[in-house]
C-alpha cells in the first residue's frame, strides 16, 4: 500500500482534519518508542520490498509485522482456535472474498454496485440447480467452473448496458437486478426450490477436519493476492482515476468504458467463486441466505468498515464484521445483534470514513518514522 496506490487518503485526509491533529500529537509521542522497533524490523521489510513490493506495494517494518502476523495467525487458526472461531473463519473467508470483489469494482471505480449478491447468488444457484435439475452426481470440477462462468455472464449482462450510465442510474440498475432475481425464485420454484431453497450440495463436513478451513482460506488468499497485484498495477491506477475524474482518463487516451467493464469481470469471477464456496459451506441454497439485497449491503458495509479502495481493508472489514456477528455478539438474538452491528457501521461511517484498517495502516506508517 504505497502512497501511489492508497489514493483514498486525499479525500479522507481532509475530512478527519481536527481529530487527526489531536491524535497526531499522541502518535508523535508514541513514535519515540516504535521507531527503534521499526528500525529493527526494517531489514526484513526491505527484503520483501525489493522482491515482492513492486507487486503488492511497499511497507515499513511495523506494517510488515502486522501483515505477516495476521497471515500467520490466520493460517494456523485450525490449530489454536476453538470450534466457534474456526467456523466463523470459514464464513469470514467467504465474505472476505465478496468484500474484496466488490471493492475492485465499486471501491476502485466509484461506480457503486448495490447488487453484488446477484453474482454470488447466481453462482450458488447454478451449482444447486445443476445438482437438483440435471444430475445429482455431477462432480465439483464440472459444477464449479459452470457456476463461476454464470456469475461472469450475469456480471457482463449488468455491466455492458449500465456502465455507460453515470451517477445513481448505475447503482439503481444493480439494485433492481437483485430484486428481479429474488422475485423470480418463487415463480420458478419448480427449478429453484422456492422459499425453502435447494439442498443436496456436498458440504465441507465431508472433507478432512483440518482441510475444511483451508478449503475456504486458500481460495480467499489466492483471490486476495491476485486482486492486490491488479490493484497495485496500472489497472488499479486507471480504475482509481475513473473514480476521481473519468474525462481525464479518456483524455489520456484510455478507454474508460473498457476498463469499467474489465473491473466488473475482475469482480464477477471471484464473486462466483465465493458464491460456490458459500453453497458448499451450508449445503443448501436459499433466497434468504444467498440472494436477498441485505447481502449486497453487508458487502458494502464490510468494505467501508475496512476502508474501500484498498482490497486488504475490505478483507479486514469482512473478518471484523463476521467475528463480531458470530463470536463476540453471538449471545444476542439476531435482531439485537444486527442492530448493534449496523450501529457500529454507522459510527465508523461518521467518525472513520476512510475505514478502520486504512487508519491503522497510516498510523503504522507514521509510527515507523521516516522511510529509508
Amino acid at each position, binding site marked *: 500500500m504505497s502512497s501511489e496506490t492508497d489514493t483514498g487518503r486525499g479525500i479522507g485526509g481532509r475530512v478527519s482534519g481536527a481529530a487527526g491533529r489531536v491524535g497526531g500529537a499522541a502518535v508523535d509521542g508514541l513514535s519515540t518508542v516504535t521507531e527503534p522497533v521499526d528500525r529493527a524490523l526494517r531489514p526484513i521489510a526491505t527484503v520483501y520490498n525489493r522482491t515482492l513490493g513492486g507487486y503488492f506495494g511497499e511497507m515499513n517494518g511495523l506494517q510488515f509485522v502486522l501483515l505477516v502476523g495476521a497471515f500467520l495467525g490466520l493460517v494456523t487458526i485450525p490449530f489454536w482456535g476453538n470450534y466457534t472461531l474456526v467456523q466463523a473463519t470459514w464464513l469470514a473467508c467467504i465474505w472476505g472474498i465478496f468484500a474484496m470483489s466488490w471493492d475492485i469494482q465499486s471501491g476502485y471505480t466509484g461506480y457503486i454496485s448495490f447488487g453484488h449478491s446477484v453474482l454470488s447468488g447466481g453462482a450458488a444457484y447454478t451449482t444447486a440447480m445443476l445438482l437438483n435439475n440435471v444430475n445429482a452426481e455431477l462432480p465439483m470440477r464440472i459444477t464449479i467452473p459452470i457456476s463461476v462462468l454464470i456469475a461472469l455472464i450475469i456480471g457482463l449482462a449488468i455491466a455492458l448496458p449500465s456502465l455507460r450510465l453515470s451517477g445513481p442510474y448505475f447503482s439503481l440498475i444493480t439494485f433492481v437486478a437483485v430484486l428481479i432475481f429474488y422475485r423470480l425464485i418463487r415463480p420458478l420454484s419448480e427449478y429453484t426450490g422456492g422459499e425453502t431453497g435447494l439442498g443436496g450440495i456436498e458440504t465441507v463436513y465431508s472433507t478432512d477436519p483440518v482441510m475444511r478451513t483451508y478449503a475456504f482460506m486458500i481460495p480467499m488468499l489466492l483471490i486476495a493476492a491476485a486482486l492486490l497485484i491488479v490493484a497495485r498495477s496500472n489497472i488499479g491506477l486507471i480504475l482509481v482515476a475513473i473514480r476521481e475524474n473519468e*474525462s481525464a482518463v479518456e*483524455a489520456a487516451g*484510455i478507454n474508460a468504458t473498457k476498463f469499467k467493464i474489465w473491473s466488473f469481470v475482475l469482480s464477477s469471477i471471484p464473486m462466483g467463486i465465493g458464491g460456490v464456496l458459500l453453497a458448499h459451506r451450508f449445503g443448501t441454497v436459499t433466497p434468504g441466505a444467498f440472494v436477498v439485497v441485505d447481502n449486497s449491503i453487508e458487502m458494502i458495509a464490510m468494505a467501508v468498515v475496512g476502508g474501500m479502495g484498498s482490497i486488504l481493508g475490505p478483507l479486514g472489514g469482512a473478518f471484523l464484521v463476521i467475528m463480531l456477528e458470530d463470536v463476540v455478539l453471538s449471545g444476542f438474538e439476531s435482531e439485537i445483534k444486527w442492530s448493534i452491528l449496523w450501529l457500529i457501521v454507522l459510527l465508523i461511517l461518521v467518525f472513520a470514513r476512510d475505514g478502520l484498517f486504512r487508519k491503522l495502516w497510516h498510523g503504522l506508517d507514521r509510527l515507523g518514522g521516516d522511510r529509508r
Partner: protein
Amino acid sequence: MSVLEVDGLTKKFGGLVAVDDFSFEVGEGEIVGLIGPNGSGKSTVFNCIMGIYGVTDGAIRFNGTDITDDSTHEVVNKGLSRVSQESNPIDSMSVAGNIKLFTLPNSIVSLRGGASEEEIYDYAARIDIEEHLHEMPDELPHADVRRLEIAKSLATEPEMMLLDEPFAGMNQAEITELADQIERFREQGMSMVVVDHNMGGLMDLVDRIVVLNNGDFLAEGTPEEIAENEQVQEAYLAGEGL
C-alpha cells in the same frame, strides 16, 4: 499538406445551432489561433474534434484519416491532444502521478508500463514544472496547474495540440513565459490550435487566425489582417473588444 481538416462542421443542440458549416485547416508545424467572442462556438469546435460531442454534420480528418466518429481516447491515440479550459487534475495523485496516467497503455492486461521517472521528468521539464513533481496539484499556484494540464497533454506524445484558453487567469509575465514555451513546442515540430476570446496573447504567437462568430466562419488571415478587419471589430463591439 494539412494535418487537421475540419470540413463543413455543424453542431446543433436541439434547435440551437452552435456551429454552422464551419471549415478550417491546420498545416504541419503551424500555429493557428481560433478566436471569437464568448459563446461563438470555439469550445464546441474543440469538443467535436475530440469526440466529446457527436457532430450533426460535416467531417473531421487528421493526417488524412477520418476521425469524425471516433471517441476521445481514439482521437488522443491518433496523436491529437487537447488542453482543456478547465484544469482537472486528480487531486489524490501527485503531479508525477497525474502525468504518468497520461502515459499508461490502453490495455486491460498491461500491469506495468507507462513512462519511467526520467521520462515523466522530461515531460514536466518541457513546460518547466519539474520542480513540482512530488507536490499535490492543490498545492500548486494557478499558473502551474495550467502547466500541469499541458504536461499531461505532452505525455500522450501528440503531433498536434488543441489549447483551449491557455492564458486564462494568468498575469502578463506568466502569459509571456507560456507563449515562449508554446513557441518552443513549434520549434520541436508540434502543430497547434490555440483558442482565445481576445487576441492579446496570440498576436506574436500565431501564424494565422480564424475568427468564429455565432458559430459561423467570419474571417481568416494573419494577425495584422485580422486586427484591421472591420467585420471582426464589429463582431466584437457587443463584447469586450479585441
